[in-house]
């Protein structure tokens, strides 16, 4: 277990880049150069980092004394620990690549505000820290920073609806952040620990959870629901997706799905063997995915529809995690990775349509297939990809989810997942028909508003979807090995 010094760079470097572009606020050329260079460096860092743990300020494990651990587990970590493994590598590679795409598209759309790019970098650093952190309070701090950064990304659209969405998001963010910190405080009061590994050891050594620890579980679960946009907060999340620029919405849904994965793994690691938590996760996930799909079917506005589809897919990921077997958890994480790609394609297409037609109301759009055939083809392929049609990637993950549901003893959930993928397909194919195949309207789109880069990026993404669909084991097997090794 050697001390890899490149690991904190994944968090520190985006923060430095954010500070730089924030200082160079008005100078657009330098902001553009620094944004491109540092985003590419941010892609390179996770690829060249070796697996391992980073002990901040070199605090090694020491034997526990009563201040640190109330029940004496043999040795505890004295400092903040970041751990970096195959799962973190996959998530961080996808996260940084998507961030690069979004930064390129934002620069392409002349959104070169230094503060905007800085907020993208700060959210990248926060999600990287949330994925890497093995320390509960560090986790909490970066969830709060992520809340502020996402709200700022939405505020950057200077419309009243986006201001209202950001205000709602931050009000409930204070509630959920307070509940997470209160849960952490109660756990600290009982066990005297903040490190997740030591906490799980202490909880296993302590036996059954006392009532105060049950209160902590409930409070942290409230925070989990908020951070991943599940049932009571799905309206807030979908408002955020809807009122951001579509590129920022693609980034936001990716970040919230990855935070969902990281926080669920943390909860399952800490309270391992507490099956009621998994049951509660499963219940909220089922509610979220059904309500998200039903609301998506009811919408007549493209961005709102895609927002509810994204919320529903997050519920599907949480359903896989809530089933609780290693197979279902790895299938849920795999579905998160696949779904992020296809949702990003759909949001980028929505951004193209918003820029060219100046609206995303479905009844005002029409016969786009003559005007933009490539975009139409790619949106159709992304629709197939997100609704689980072979040979695309979501087919592999949804197939594994259904298999895991049947193996876990809930065959009805397999039927429900099939119905939900059908509903998602109907919802998005309705939008596809009304945009690209419906007889046209009098709206005159200017189709040259986006350069060649936009088309290149969505083609790259659909090729990535096809590649993961054809070779799923490249992504799935490391995740499965990690989950089995975690033993949650």
């Amino acid at each position, binding site marked *: 277990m050697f001390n890899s010094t490149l690991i904190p760079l994944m968090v520190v470097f985006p923060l430095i880049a954010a500070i730089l572009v924030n200082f160079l606020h008005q100078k657009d050329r330098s902001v553009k150069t620094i944004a491109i260079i540092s985003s590419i460096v941010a892609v390179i860092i996770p690829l060249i980092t070796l697996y391992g743990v980073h002990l901040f300020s070199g605090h090694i494990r020491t034997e526990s004394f009563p201040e640190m651990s109330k029940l004496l587990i043999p040795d505890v970590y004295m400092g903040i620990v970041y751990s970096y493994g195959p799962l973190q590598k996959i998530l961080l590679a996808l996260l940084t690549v998507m961030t690069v795409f979004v930064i390129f598209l934002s620069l392409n759309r002349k959104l070169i505000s230094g503060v905007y790019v800085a907020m993208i970098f700060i959210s990248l650093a926060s999600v990287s820290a949330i994925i890497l952190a093995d320390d509960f309070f560090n986790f909490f701090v970066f969830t709060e920073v992520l809340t502020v950064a996402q709200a700022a990304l939405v505020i950057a659209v200077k419309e009243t609806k986006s201001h209202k969405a950001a205000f*709602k998001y931050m*009000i*409930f963010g204070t*509630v959920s952040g307070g*509940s997470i910190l209160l849960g952490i405080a109660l756990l600290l009061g009982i066990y005297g620990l903040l490190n997740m590994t030591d906490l799980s050891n202490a909880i296993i050594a302590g036996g059954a959870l006392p*009532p105060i620890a*049950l*209160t902590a*579980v*409930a409070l942290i*679960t*409230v925070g989990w*629901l908020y951070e991943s946009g599940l*049932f*009571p*907060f*799905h*309206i*807030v999340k979908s*408002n955020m997706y809807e009122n951001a620029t579509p590129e920022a919405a693609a980034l936001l849904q990716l970040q919230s799905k990855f935070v969902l994965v990281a926080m669920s793994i943390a909860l399952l690691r800490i309270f391992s063997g507490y*099956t*009621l938590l998994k*049951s*509660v996760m*499963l*219940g*909220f996930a*089922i509610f979220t995915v*059904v*309500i998200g*799909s*039903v*609301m998506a*079917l*009811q919408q*007549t506005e493209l961005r709102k529809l895609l927002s509810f589809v994204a919320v529903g897919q997050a519920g599907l990921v949480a359903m896989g995690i809530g089933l609780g077997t290693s197979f279902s958890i790895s299938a849920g994480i795999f579905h998160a990775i696949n779904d992020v790609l296809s949702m990003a394609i759909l949001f980028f297409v929505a951004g193209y349509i918003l820029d060219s037609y100046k609206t995303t109301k*479905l*009844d005002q759009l029409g016969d786009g297939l003559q005007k933009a055939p490539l975009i139409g083809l790619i949106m159709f392929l992304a629709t197939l990809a997100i609704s689980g049609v072979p040979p695309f990637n979501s087919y592999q993950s949804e197939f594994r989810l259904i298999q895991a549901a049947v193996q876990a003893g*809930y065959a*009805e*959930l397999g*039927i*429900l997942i099939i*119905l*939900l993928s*059908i*509903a998602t397909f*109907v*919802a998005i194919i*309705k939008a596809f*028909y*009304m945009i690209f195949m419906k007889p046209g309207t009098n709206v005159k789109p200017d189709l040259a508003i986006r350069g060649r880069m936009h088309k290149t990026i969505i083609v790259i993404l659909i090729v990535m979807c096809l590649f993961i669909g054809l070779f799923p084991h490249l992504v799935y097997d490391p995740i499965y090995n990690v989950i089995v090794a975690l033993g949650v």
Partner: protein
Amino acid sequence: MLDKIYEIFHERMIHKGKGVGIGSGFTSEFLMISFFLIAGILVLRTANSVLFALGSMVILAAILFTVPTVFRVEKENTDSINLTCFYVALSIAVLLIVFFSGSEVLI
């Protein structure tokens, strides 16, 4: 029969376009009903307490008598902040109750 359902949906969803919107309305209604049936079956199968079984049967009957449920769901999921506050308070209460009672009966 189908024409009557179409008429019901049409006069409910008059502002949502003609054919495709009503088709998606049918789909969501079918999804809601099948979801309630599946949830009822799950609770009946996994809950080994008579109370849960009776409660789920009553709720299922009450829901199946109030189709179409889609518009109810849509009315409960508006962008209103007060509704979200209500559901947040409700879910916090439900979480505390569930974790304190510690009943493994729930699925």
